C-alpha cells in the first residue's frame, strides 16, 4: 500500500508534536483529535487532553475517536468527566495549549465555521462554532490546525468571525506548508520542504504577512511518518474523509 503524501503526514506529525510538548492540551474536533491520538505514539513529554463536553483523557483511545464526544472509543483513557462550563468557561485559561481545527482562518487568528454569505440566508451553512468561541477567547496559547490544501481558505480577514483569540493569546497556525504566527504581526515562522510551499509564502505575503524570516521546519523522521500513516489507515476505517482522501491519492500515484 502506498503511503499518504508527505505533506499530510508531516502536517499530522507536527501537529502531534504540539501535544508532546506536554501539559494540559484542550483538544478540538477533527484534525486535533487525530493529532492527539497520534501524539501518544510519538516521543515527548506527557500530556493530558481536555474536551468541550467535560472529558479529559490520559492515554490513547482504544479506537481512533470519530469525534471529541466518541466516548466509547476513548474507553478507559477517559478521566475526569466534568461538564461543559467547567472546561470552556472555568478552566480554559489554565490550559497549557488549545489546539483547534481551522477550516477557514485569517491572519488575525479568527476562524469562520458558521456561514458563507448572510447569516439568516447563507450561501453555505457551515456547522457552527460549538465550544471553539469560548476556549479560543480564553486560551493562553492557541494552535489552529488547517489541514486543507486550498490557499483560499487562508485569508486576510474571514467574512464572519465564529471564534477569535483573546487580546493576549499567542496564536500560531499550522498548515501543510508551514507554521504562521498570526495576530497583530503575522509572520511565516517555519516553512516546509514540500510542494506548494513557495505559493504559500507568496499567498501570505499578498495577504500582508512577513515571510522573510522563516526558518526551515524541523525534519520528520521515518518512524514518525510510519506512525502517522498507520493512524491515517485506522482513521479511514473510522470514517475520516481526510484519511480516505489521502490514502486514495496515494493509491493513485
Amino acid at each position, binding site marked *: 500500500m502506498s503511503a499518504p503524501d508527505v505533506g499530510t503526514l508531516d502536517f499530522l506529525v507536527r501537529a502531534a508534536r504540539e501535544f508532546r510538548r506536554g501539559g494540559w492540551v484542550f483538544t478540538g474536533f477533527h484534525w486535533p483529535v487525530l493529532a492527539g491520538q497520534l501524539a501518544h505514539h510519538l516521543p515527548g513529554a506527557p500530556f493530558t487532553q481536555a474536551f468541550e463536553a467535560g472529558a479529559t483523557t490520559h492515554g490513547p483511545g482504544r479506537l481512533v475517536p470519530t469525534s471529541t*464526544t466518541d466516548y466509547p472509543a476513548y474507553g478507559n483513557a477517559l478521566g475526569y468527566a466534568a461538564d461543559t462550563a467547567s472546561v470552556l468557561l472555568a478552566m480554559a485559561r489554565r490550559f497549557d495549549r488549545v489546539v483547534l481545527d481551522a477550516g477557514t482562518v485569517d491572519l488575525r487568528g479568527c476562524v469562520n465555521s458558521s456561514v458563507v454569505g448572510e447569516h439568516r440566508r447563507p450561501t453555505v451553512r457551515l456547522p457552527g462554532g460549538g465550544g471553539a468561541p469560548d476556549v479560543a477567547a480564553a486560551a493562553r496559547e492557541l494552535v489552529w490546525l488547517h489541514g486543507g490544501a486550498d490557499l483560499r481558505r487562508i485569508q486576510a480577514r474571514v467574512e464572519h468571525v465564529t471564534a477569535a483569540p483573546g487580546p493576549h493569546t499567542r496564536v500560531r497556525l499550522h498548515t501543510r506548508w508551514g507554521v504562521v504566527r498570526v495576530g497583530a504581526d503575522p509572520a511565516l515562522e517555519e516553512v516546509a520542504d514540500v510542494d506548494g510551499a513557495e505559493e504559500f509564502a507568496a499567498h501570505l505575503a499578498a495577504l500582508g504577512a512577513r515571510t522573510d524570516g522563516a526558518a526551515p521546519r524541523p525534519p520528520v523522521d521515518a518512524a514518525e511518518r510510519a506512525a502517522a500513516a498507520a493512524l491515517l489507515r485506522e482513521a479511514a476505517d473510522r470514517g475520516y474523509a481526510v484519511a480516505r482522501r489521502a490514502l486514495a491519492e496515494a493509491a493513485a500515484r
Partner: protein
Amino acid sequence: MRPVLGLADAVRAHVRPGTRVYLGNFGAQLFCVGHEVIRQGVRDVDLVIASGGLLMDQLLGAGVLRSATFGHCWSPVGPAPAHNFRRAAEGGAPVALHEMSLGLLTAALTAGAWGVPFLPVPDRAGTGYVDEDWTRGLLDTATCRFGTSRVVRAEVPDVAFVHADLADADGNGVVRGPLGEVVVAAQAARAVVLVAEELAPAETVRAAGITIPGLLVSAVVHHPGALAPDGALGRYDRDVAAYERYARRAATPEGFRSWLEEEVLT
C-alpha cells in the same frame, strides 16, 4: 417512586406543538426520543440541543422543528455536513435558528436552573454571536453598580430528555462519562424524563454515584440502546457505518425521505 413509562407514552405526555424540548446528552444523543417524536408527527417543537448532530438534522428534515437553539450541527463521523440543516438554512426554511457557543448555551441553562432571568457571560464581541446577532436576541448587556457585562437570557425547557446509564425506582440517574450541560438542563427544565439503559436497585445506583437526583425527574423510560447509532460508554460503540449511510442518503431530500421511511417510520 417515579413512573416508568414506555418511550411512546413519555413522548406523548411531554411533547406537543409549541413544547420547548431539551434533548440530551452532549455526545450521547437520544436518537430514540427524536425518532419517537417524528413517528408521533409532532410539529412546531422548539429544540434546545448543545451539539445538534444528526439528531437535530433529522428533526429538521422531518419538519418537527419551529426553532432550534444549538451550538453546532454536523455529522461527527467524516465529518460530513448535516444536509437537512444546510438545506433549511440555505433555503430560508421557516425555522428560527438561534446559534450559540456551547459556553453561552450552558450559561443560559444555568440561569434557567437558578431561576434568574439572565446570567453574565464572557464577552464574545468581535464574533458574529454579538456583532451580527447570531443568537437572534438571546444576548444583551446589563449594567449595575458592580459593572457592565454581556448577559445571556435564561433558557427554561418545558421538558428535558436526559440519557442515563442507570436509573432506580425513585428516578435517581447515573450519567456515565462527561456531563456536557445535562445537569443544568435537568435543573432548568420544568419536567425531566430520564431515559435509562438499565433499571437497577437503589443501592447499585447510589454506589455508582447519582448524577441526576430523582427530585428533578418526572418519569423514567427504560430503553436499552437509547442512543444508537451513537455510542454509550461501557455498553456499545458508535455505529460508524450507520452515520455514513445516513450522510449519503440525506444528501438529497428524496434520499432523506426514503431513509426516514425505512429506518424511523416503519
